[in-house]
């Protein structure tokens, strides 16, 4: 008997311990408690032990199929009635009753046993470890709460409220977006730029194959600028209809100024001409007394929108960092030694500041690795490099150019005195007497706000006027007659073959019936021609 006692009690205790960890904890511990209370019954026949084992198994099965809550409910109703009714105050039972009548809400859970009714209990089973100390908590809770004015907030398990269709309502989503728009508008009003100034964009251009490419890109950037903007386009060789129609489609305020000289084909001369065109634009600004911030946007450059936010801060003259993209244009990269690669500085041109944020110098683009390999003629397949400091990196306050403006600093030269003698105006610093008063913008030059790039086709390359094909194409121009150089001989002959085939097919469809005879005949002809 004694021997049988030990394994029994161990079985019970281990079972109880295991069950306490699993979900069927309530029932099993109740079972263990119940067993413990009449522990002396261990002296009976093994029938008792099997009975408790079977009861334990039954409780496990019940909790497995019906869920922890049901089995715990069973346990509470069966085993805790003694504790409840033996408590001193009647308010304890009323506490339970009150608990059972609180919120019965539907909970849809994803477990296989879907519990549709959830009962809330005040302090029956605490989150594990659940011990028999439950009862004392219940008692003291009851006595504790009975003395206070009852709040409707009940401690214990509550249902999780889910509405029947928990998905967003489109009307509400729109309302939320309108709220956010209004909030952002207020933010801009409080923290953004207080008085936005007009932006005057100066662009030198001329009609060529890549003009549409560059101007379209610039046009879209300028359309997105949130400030009032005037685009001053200076065209070399006089105004053309092509350019005018391109500009007219932009919807911006345009000032289209003709410049008498034609754009030269040499990069060095082209830079000089562009500088003179920009000065011409500045003179126009001065004449018309246009007020605002002058940004030099070359048509092939790419600008970020932050540039236009940043230039609003300029007082008289500011400098921003420009990323220099030296496009190589050849199939092979220039051979750079390892040392060159190591020492290659950042391709950025802009202001250099000391630690206290004052301008101390200028970063310029290092052209040494490209020495001797740069393009001289427009359209040449070689890198095009900037010269010194590019105009694109500078921003002016137009009042600086006016003859009379209040607060105009004395370190600004009068515009009339600049460029009259035909001297080369390399960069806007020549407009100043004292170049050290330039304001560095964009977090003291740390932010690159635009990129400088020169990509052009050959000066004599063909393109349809205004990119409108008039009259419509009738003849396919063979590859041999286009101005750009051929890549390989093999390639061109293949191209030629395919082009001849296409032409033959078209002609044979219209004229002859049998294709094969004509194709072979032509091919023979072509090969004859080739040789």
């Amino acid at each position: 008997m004694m021997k049988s006692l030990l394994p029994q009690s161990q079985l019970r205790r281990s079972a109880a311990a295991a069950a306490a960890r699993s979900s069927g904890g309530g029932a099993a511990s109740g079972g263990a408690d119940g067993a413990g209370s009449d522990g002396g019954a261990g002296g009976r026949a093994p029938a008792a032990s099997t009975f408790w084992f079977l009861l334990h198994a039954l409780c496990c099965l019940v909790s497995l199929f019906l869920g922890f809550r049901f089995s715990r409910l069973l346990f509470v109703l069966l085993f805790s009635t003694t504790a409840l009714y033996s408590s001193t105050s009647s308010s304890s039972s009323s506490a339970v009753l009150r608990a059972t009548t609180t919120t019965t809400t539907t909970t849809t859970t994803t477990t296989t046993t879907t519990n549709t009714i959830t009962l809330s209990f005040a302090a029956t089973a605490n989150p594990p470890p659940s011990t028999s100390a439950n009862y004392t908590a219940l008692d003291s809770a009851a006595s504790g709460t009975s003395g206070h004015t009852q709040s409707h907030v009940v401690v214990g398990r509550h249902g999780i409220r889910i509405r029947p269709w928990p998905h967003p309502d489109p009307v509400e989503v729109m309302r939320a977006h309108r709220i956010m728009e209004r909030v952002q508008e207020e933010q801009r009003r409080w923290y953004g730029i207080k008085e936005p100034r007009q932006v005057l964009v100066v662009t030198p251009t001329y009609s060529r194959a890549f003009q549409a490419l560059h101007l379209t890109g610039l046009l879209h950037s300028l359309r997105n600028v949130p400030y009032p903007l005037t685009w001053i386009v200076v065209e070399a060789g006089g105004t053309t209809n092509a350019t005018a129609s391109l500009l007219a489609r932009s919807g911006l305020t345009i000032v289209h100024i003709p410049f008498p000289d034609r754009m030269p084909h040499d990069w060095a001369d082209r830079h000089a001409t562009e500088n003179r065109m920009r000065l011409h634009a500045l003179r126009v600004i001065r004449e018309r007394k246009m007020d605002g911030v002058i940004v030099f946007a070359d048509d092939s450059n790419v600008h970020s929108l932050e540039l236009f936010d940043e230039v609003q801060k300029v007082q008289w003259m500011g400098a921003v960092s420009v990323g220099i993209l030296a496009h190589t244009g050849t199939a092979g990269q220039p051979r750079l030694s390892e040392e060159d690669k190591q020492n290659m500085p950042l391709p950025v041109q802009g202001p250099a500041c000391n630690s206290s944020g004052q301008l101390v110098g200028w970063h310029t683009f290092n052209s040494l690795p490209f020495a001797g390999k740069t393009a001289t003629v427009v359209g040449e397949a070689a890198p095009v490099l900037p010269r010194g400091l590019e105009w694109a990196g500078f921003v002016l306050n137009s009042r600086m150019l006016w003859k009379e403006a209040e607060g105009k600093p004395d370190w600004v030269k009068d515009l009339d005195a600049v460029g009259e003698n035909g001297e080369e105006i390399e960069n806007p610093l020549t407009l100043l007497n004292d170049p050290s008063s330039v304001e560095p913008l964009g977090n003291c030059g740390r932010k690159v706000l635009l990129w400088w790039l020169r990509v052009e086709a050959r000066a004599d390359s063909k393109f349809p006027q205004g990119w409108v094909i008039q009259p419509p194409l009738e003849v396919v121009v063979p590859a041999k007659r286009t101005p750009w150089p051929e890549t390989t001989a093999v390639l061109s002959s293949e191209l030629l073959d395919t082009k001849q085939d296409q032409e033959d097919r078209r002609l044979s469809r219209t004229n002859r019936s049998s294709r094969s005879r004509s194709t072979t005949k032509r091919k023979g002809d072509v090969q004859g021609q080739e040789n």
Partner: protein
Amino acid sequence: MRWVLAIAILAAASFFLGAEAQDARQGHQTERISGSAGDVLEDDPVGRLKVYVYDLPSKYNKKLLKKDPRCLNHMFAAEIFMHRFLLSSAVRTFNPEEADWFYTPVYTTCDLTPSGLPLPFKSPRMMRSAIELIATSWPYWNRSEGADHFFVTPHDFGACFHYQEEKAIGRGILPLLQRATLVQTFGQKNHVCLKDGSITIPPFAPPQKMQAHLIPPDTPRSIFVYFRGLFYDTSNDPEGGYYARGARASVWENFKNNPLFDISTDHPPTYYEDMQRAVFCLCPLGWAPWSPRLVEAVVFGCIPVIIADDIVLPFADAIPWEEIGVFVAEEDVPKLDSILTSIPTDVILRKQRLLANPSMKQAMLFPQPAQQGDAFHQILNGLARKLPHGDNVFLKPGERALNWTAGPVGDLKPW
């Protein structure tokens, strides 16, 4: 003569009105906060009260901190910083006879588990031992039985000293603190653990850490509702329904598919930055109704959406929380999106203006060293507003109000 006078009065009136209209049109960025107690956030407590700090042996304060310096960083660190503030404050007096309030520096929450959670099991004994010490060494406790003393008890359920609500309710407030003023973070109406006359304070949030994560204020607020935290506490409440009274789980189940709600259990490194890009920040209850999210929302200008029935918010008599935050009943959580989108835009903008008021942000923080208008000063303001002491504060000779043997047996053991 009369005509001239009339015209002069009319001119003055119109000028005055014009100036006022100008003011209104300017659209101020911030708005003055006037709570039920008036514009008291900017009051200066110096000169309005005197506090005497008991000199307890270091086993109650310094030794605990030396044993575990993590106590300075968790959200209950207010008790330590309050002690340090009072030691060097202008309201401190070294003459206990002229003191209005008495402060006992005992760090009851400075007993941390290895993972950093405070254990409240020794706290009642610690507090009791401290009170016994001051009752025997100074006469000031006995003459009022603690009614002119205040204690900082920032734990989950205040002076009930337990983290589980049922156990805390079962214990109730420590009987010895029955007459004292409690300065605590917990506040819920008609709750055992909130005594009448307690001062609710915000939980401690590190001010330098929040300042380090500020982003430019013109960054547009593009998140509608933001929340990061647990919805289900699977380790302590595996089936759900206990944690947060099911409110957080309800938020998740109803709004996990809603693009306006940026809610998840992530711990992103950009948590503070994201709050500054949100219009509403949810502050639902957890195991206790209060959370540091309220402080973070106020500091970062995000309108707090408080989902905790009957909660008492910090400095409720000085700060008009209904005008600043949005209160949603736990049973209305499934309709949270409708509630938030139907708030009129000008109400939202006004709430943002109130939140932008620097005195509001300052009142929620415990900066080191203390600054004008911060939470330390608001606590002192609260204490000052309770002065002068009423008639029932000081007991008549021979009168006894406290029961020194009440409470669980375990509490009576010496510490």
